[in-house]
């Protein structure tokens, strides 16, 4: 409260943004050549092309070339201008004023204005997109004093509020197309009208999605590429071969197997950029259902963690790409700390913990529960590569401390279903961090987010009153340093309680032929707009 008063007294506004625009365009202005047809790959057809709908990551990769958000983020997670050329945050942290770019048109020729922003944030996104709806919960009002200004007033301070506005999460949609229509059945869903650097030419299902340059893009002289073609190629080996044979110019970790990535890394024949994944920052981990029998005991969960050699997992399951996780926040996220005690590989300690709980070892060194039955943990495997291999290793490692593991291989629909409905013991998962512990980690470990039937909530049922209170405190703290301290405490507390076993902060790559430039210009890599990408 005191801090709020003090800052209010200054009544000053902070301006960010405009300077970064200049710096950014200067760095790109040197060597680019215009023209070129870029071919890249996708595993399956996108589920749509409209980012306002929850169509999943692949759809957003394409949509990010057609639609834009108010801001974007640099690879070190500083905000960059998008449709907003600058923004001001009032000193009390409650009012955000966005100044929009001039001369922006939708690609049907209609002028873009603050009315589109209002429509998107007030009407369309809350109705179509659960993530956007949640993000806008703390908003009191959104107003447009004139055609180039949008003012958002919050009910309470949200330190990470700006983090919610990249186009990938909060795309701005055309009011004149969608207002008053049934959003899901709107014919423009198949021929999207956006403000972005590219527009859709053809989506041939099962074969390709073809985009061509938007000649009237507002940010001259971009875009440089004439076209981008997403070829739909369902087989990972075929995608790697297409890249090697030159049929395809670009692929990412999302499309390549970890062994192919490791091979390309050694061969050096491609440009490999590990930047551009900072916002989503995936972490591979084991989510533990703390409701289930022995798993209720934190010591048992700790034992499971001590029994796993994370170095081995990094080297042999992920072929050495990535970093060993230390806790619920990954290395690339602000407020990460390594100054916490985590779980090294220590099977002796694991066994000691199991002894302490009273799970004695019976015949064949199998641990038995109080009734004398051998303890078996069900491990739900996330479908896809390399999680099957990971599961095999985990089974062997846990066998070493006398715990039997029942591997459960399911398809993705089934996996979602079981996770959302708490129908698992331990589950291999891959969770995004969304640039701030207040967005990512909070939704996975705050007990207020234990919601049955809802994916990516607190699915393991972890509950610690102290952690909840700290998360709530952090979500009101505007001072980055103090917020950092709170998040450090949170990380240590969660790691001690071990509601999950954090394995690898995944390192992902954008792999391209060496004559392709500027693919990674922000924290979204392949999800970026590619407006400044070019082929030499």
């Amino acid at each position: 409260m005191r801090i709020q008063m003090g800052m209010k007294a200054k009544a000053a506004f902070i301006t960010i943004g405009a300077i970064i625009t200049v710096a950014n365009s200067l760095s790109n202005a040197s060597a680019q050549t215009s023209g070129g047809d870029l071919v890249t790959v996708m595993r399956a057809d996108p589920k749509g092309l409209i980012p306002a709908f929850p169509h999943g990551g692949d759809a957003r990769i394409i949509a990010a070339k057609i639609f834009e958000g108010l801001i974007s983020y640099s690879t070190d997670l500083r905000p960059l201008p998008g449709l907003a050329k600058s923004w001001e945050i009032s000193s009390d942290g409650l009012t955000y004023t966005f100044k929009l770019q001039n001369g922006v048109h939708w690609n049907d020729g209609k002028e873009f204005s603050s009315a589109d922003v209002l429509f998107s944030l007030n009407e369309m996104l809350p109705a179509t997109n659960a993530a956007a709806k949640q993000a806008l919960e703390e908003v009191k009002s959104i107003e447009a004093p004139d055609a180039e200004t949008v003012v958002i007033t919050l009910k309470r301070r949200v330190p990470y509020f700006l983090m919610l506005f990249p186009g990938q999460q909060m795309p701005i949609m055309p009011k004149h197309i969608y207002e008053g229509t049934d959003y899901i059945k709107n014919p423009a869903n198949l021929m999207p009208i956006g403000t972005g650097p590219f527009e859709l030419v053809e989506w041939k299902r099962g074969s390709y999605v073809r985009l061509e340059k938007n000649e009237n893009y507002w940010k001259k002289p971009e875009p440089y590429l004439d076209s981008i073609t997403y070829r739909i190629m369902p087989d990972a080996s075929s995608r790697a071969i297409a890249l090697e044979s030159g049929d395809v110019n670009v692929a990412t970790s999302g499309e390549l197997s970890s062994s192919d990535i490791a091979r390309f890394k050694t061969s050096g024949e491609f440009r490999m950029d590990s930047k551009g994944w900072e916002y989503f920052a995936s972490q591979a981990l084991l989510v533990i259902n703390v409701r289930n029998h022995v798993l209720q005991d934190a010591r048992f969960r700790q034992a499971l963690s001590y029994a796993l050699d994370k170095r081995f997992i990094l080297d042999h399951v992920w072929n050495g790409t990535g970093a060993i996780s230390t806790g619920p926040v990954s290395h690339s996220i602000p407020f990460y700390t390594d100054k916490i005690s985590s779980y090294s590989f220590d099977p002796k300690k694991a066994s000691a913990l199991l002894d302490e709980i009273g799970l004695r070892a019976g015949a064949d060194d199998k641990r038995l529960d109080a009734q004398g039955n051998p303890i078996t943990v069900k491990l739900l495997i996330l479908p896809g590569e390399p999680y099957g291999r990971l599961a095999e290793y985990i089974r062997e490692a846990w066998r070493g401390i006398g715990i039997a593991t029942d591997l459960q291989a399911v398809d993705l629909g089934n996996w979602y279903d079981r996770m959302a409905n708490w129908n698992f013991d331990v589950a291999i998962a891959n969770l995004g961090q969304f640039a701030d512990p207040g967005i990512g980690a909070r939704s996975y470990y705050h007990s207020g987010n234990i919601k049955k039937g809802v994916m990516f909530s607190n699915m393991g049922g972890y509950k610690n009153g102290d952690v909840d209170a700290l998360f709530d405190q952090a979500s009101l703290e505007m001072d980055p340093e103090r917020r950092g301290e709170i998040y450090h405490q949170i990380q240590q507390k969660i790691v001690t309680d071990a509601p999950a076993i954090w394995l690898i902060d995944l390192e992902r790559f954008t792999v391209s032929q060496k004559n392709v430039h500027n693919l990674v210009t922000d924290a979204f890599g392949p999800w970026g707009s590619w407006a400044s990408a070019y082929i030499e």
Partner: protein
Amino acid sequence: MQFLGYVSWRLLKAAALLVAVISLNFLLIRMVPGDPATVIAGESGMADADFVARIREIYGLDQPLLVQLKTYLVNTLSLDFGHSYRLQTDVLALIIERLPATIALTGAAFIFSLVVGVSLGVIAGSRPGSKVDVAIQFVSVALYSVPVFWIGLMLILVFSLKLHWLPASGTGFEYGQIPGVLEFLSHLLLPMITLSLFYIAVYIRLARTSVVDVTHQDFVRTAKSKGLPSAFILRKHVLPNAILPVVTMAALQAGHLVSGSIAVETIFAWPGIGRLGYEALVQRDYNMLLGVFLVTATMVVLLNLVADVLYVVVDPRIELVR
């Protein structure tokens, strides 16, 4: 008259079978855990309960199962296969769009495997025990046992990546222009061969065994003792009798003409029906999956019908019994 009665009786049975297949498919799919709402919500990264409920409502998943089944049957019989939530398009239109690519691949493989397989089988069967026979049998066993995806990848590695003779994937339509006939055929060649190899192995074994069997029968010995030339005996006496098992197998393969091949279409990024169905399953795209099942099942039932009728025509030994 007896023949017409037979055909219409079979048609009636086929129609009943199809309705049963539609209903069974519908119920089976609903029994698999995880519905479109969980998949959509899961892939959006974040979700809430209202949202999941609204998705269920949009796709009619909040209705009782029997009501859903009734709606589905009525719609299907009026050729409305529904809308694919995943591909944002009409199910029937997309299946029809995929048919040419599917049939080009499976049809070419069908003809190729039939011609190559039967020829090799007859060559081997007419000289049992010879070096040629042993070599052909070896090839047949090898082709039968090697997994399709492995052969496909090896062919790509050799003919596309190393020799640069043939394209590795796609149909040639990917770059915003219509390819020439030769270019299309060059895209077709590798997947067609990959898909054919297994069937070639099967046809070799069937044709060879059948030819060997028939060669030992009395009427062939009689023909030989009459001093007829062996090529004539093979053509006029052996082949017509040896061909029946091949027809059975060919009818089975033909049934799969429209279902495509998941493995080959996946490896070669071929936009066929096999992949369409497989991806629909993974995404719980009910309408699309049911549409693919229905079209495939109809085709299998129809072609079996045709094969049964063909038997009666081809083989005078088969009699119709009332």
